[in-house]
């Protein structure tokens, strides 16, 4: 296996390209530190992010390396049927841009975070609870980013898969990200995202053309048809890994929530220079949001075609699709980087690798900034009654960034991931976003929504834990067939997700009607100092 995985075109020149790129990113962070004057600048880049820069940074953040890896895996296993996720993401983002659904009211409220909106709309109590849930779920959610992203780098560069290379890659990248994120905040994030977008967008197009040139346009479709049948194209075909409930759940999760509720995407809305700019930014970003799923999936499909049909990949075929009943193949996550390492020539490989590393880092910097600012602005400051100077807030946010970085390094080094990592991410994210989606929708568009109702809605998100495999087995939602030994689920994760959202809506509506707000409970202002 080591010999097969070490065959890559990644050479010395490519290492130099990667090193130069990373140094530029750090230099940007050091240079923009002079512009950081208060929390609005540190978290929101002074709300001066124009439309096109907004598109670049929104895409840069959401086109993370982990997204690439998992979408490539979806393409590898699901074929072109997986493309439906990309269409859903793009259509939902376009819808949000055209209507301003959720994001426009948030921008008008001039808040820096979603929990801050909770306070303006409901109460300080809701803000703190919302902040705790958000930070908890968000930090858990990103706990495996570092490990998974580093596997890509090990795979594409041909570093030893069974040595300490993975650990050193994780440590090095994390240190670099922490340097420019703690120093420059959102300004660093925006500028490095722009550079990443430029390099990545042209690199992706070139790499895609090379993959098609190597494999053959018609052959790509033919091999998928032969290997997967109708399931390789139709997401609701009989026996498909997707199905109607999955598609419905993705409309909410990958579509509406991914564009209008997930904090790192919404952070771009809150940093936009105006509402008009925000809507334009979303409309154009709908293309990027489609591409960020579709392109990696296409590469995953190309990796499948390469491995299953090309004679030069015979060694890989035996690793990923071993013969013999019950034989377990190599982790599918490695298929994409190994394929790219063999397909792309030197220099091009270095540029793509640099851009993918940048994507990895830009996701980390945005997520680190997002969760740390929630802890500062939405938990600590409200608990202190709002009495905290600008300097103290910025410094506290920086300290929290470093602490979160330490956690994800620890989690990435010691957590023993399984094939259920995607489920882990969906559940951890869902703890926050199922409740938040409901609270935002009803809070913005229904005048009778109350603080108590909002609390019910937020806590309903914990029911997402029933989507986790061990919890399903303990609770009886999954049982073992006595005859075949096969585990059968009574409810899929998608069905549980849809049910949780429905229940959260119901609980919040009932809670609001039974426990309406009294006038004196509304909107206590604990955000003095540090924002404009």
């Amino acid at each position, binding site marked *: 296996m080591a010999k097969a995985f070490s065959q890559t075109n990644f050479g010395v020149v490519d290492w130099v390209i990667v090193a130069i790129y990373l140094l530029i990113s750090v230099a940007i962070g050091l240079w923009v530190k*002079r*512009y950081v*004057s208060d929390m609005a*600048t540190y978290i929101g*880049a*002074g709300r*001066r*992010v*124009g*439309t*096109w*820069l*907004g*598109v*670049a940074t929104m895409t840069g953040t959401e086109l993370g390396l982990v997204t690439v890896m998992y979408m490539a895996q979806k393409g590898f296993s699901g074929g*072109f*049927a997986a*493309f439906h996720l*990309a*269409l859903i993401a*793009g259509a939902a983002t376009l819808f949000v841009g055209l209507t301003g659904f959720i994001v426009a009211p948030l921008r008008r409220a001039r808040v820096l975070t979603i929990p801050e909106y909770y306070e303006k709309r409901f109460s300080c109590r809701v803000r703190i609870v919302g902040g705790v849930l958000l930070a908890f779920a968000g930090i858990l959610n990103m706990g495996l980013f570092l490990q998974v992203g580093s596997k890509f780098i090990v795979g594409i560069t041909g570093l030893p898969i069974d040595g300490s290379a993975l650990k050193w890659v994780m440590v090095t990248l994390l240190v670099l990200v922490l340097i420019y994120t703690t120093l420059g905040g959102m*300004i660093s994030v*925006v*500028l490095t995202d*722009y550079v990443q*977008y*430029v390099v990545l*967008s*042209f690199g992706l*197009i070139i790499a*895609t053309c090379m993959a098609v040139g190597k494999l053959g346009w018609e052959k790509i*479709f033919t091999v998928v*048809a032969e290997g997967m049948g*109708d399931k390789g*194209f*139709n997401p609701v075909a009989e026996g498909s890994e997707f199905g109607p409930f999955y598609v419905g759940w993705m409309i909410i999760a990958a579509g509406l929530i991914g564009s209008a509720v997930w904090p790192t995407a919404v952070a771009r809305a809150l940093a936009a*220079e*105006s*509402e*008009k*700019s925000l809507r334009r930014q979303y409309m*154009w970003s709908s*293309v*990027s949001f*489609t*591409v960020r799923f*579709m392109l990696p999936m*296409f590469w995953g499909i190309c990796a499948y075609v390469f491995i299953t049909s090309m004679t030069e990949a015979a060694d890989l075929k035996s690793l990923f699709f071993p013969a013999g009943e019950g034989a377990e193949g190599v982790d599918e996550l490695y298929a994409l980087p190994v394929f790219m390492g063999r397909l792309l020539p030197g220099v091009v490989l270095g540029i793509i690798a640099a851009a993918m590393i940048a994507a990895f880092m830009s996701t980390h910097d945005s997520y680190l900034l997002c969760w740390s600012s929630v802890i500062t602005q939405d938990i600590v400051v409200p608990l202190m009654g709002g009495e905290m100077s600008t300097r103290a807030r910025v410094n506290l946010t920086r300290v929290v960034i470093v602490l979160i970085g330490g956690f994800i390094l620890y989690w990435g080094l010691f957590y023993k991931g399984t094939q259920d990592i995607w489920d882990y991410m969906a559940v951890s994210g869902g703890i926050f976003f199922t409740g938040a989606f409901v609270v935002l929708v009803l809070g913005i568009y229904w005048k009778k929504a109350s603080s108590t109702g909002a609390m019910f809605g937020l806590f309903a998100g914990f029911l997402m834990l029933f989507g986790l495999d061990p919890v399903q087995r303990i609770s009886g939602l999954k049982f073992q067939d006595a005859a075949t030994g096969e585990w059968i689920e009574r409810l899929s994760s998608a069905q549980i997700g849809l049910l949780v959202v429905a229940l959260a809506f119901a609980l919040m509506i009932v809670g609001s009607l039974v426990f309406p707000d009294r006038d004196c409970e509304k909107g206590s202002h604990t955000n003095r100092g540090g924002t404009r």
Partner: protein
Amino acid sequence: MTWMLFWKIMFVLVMAVFAVMSILVTVLGARDIRRLLSGLKDDASADADPSRPRPEVDGDGRE
């Protein structure tokens, strides 16, 4: 129309639009960066000089 044909058309269309958009974002994004840094410089100057009025920015980001 078969699913295969649908995805072929969709993929080519999306890639074409993305290519055009990438050029736009590269060029116009650079312009936005200049405006961002200029605006932040103005804000920093206003903060440093209390007697100098901070420029008012309207809903479309114009002074």
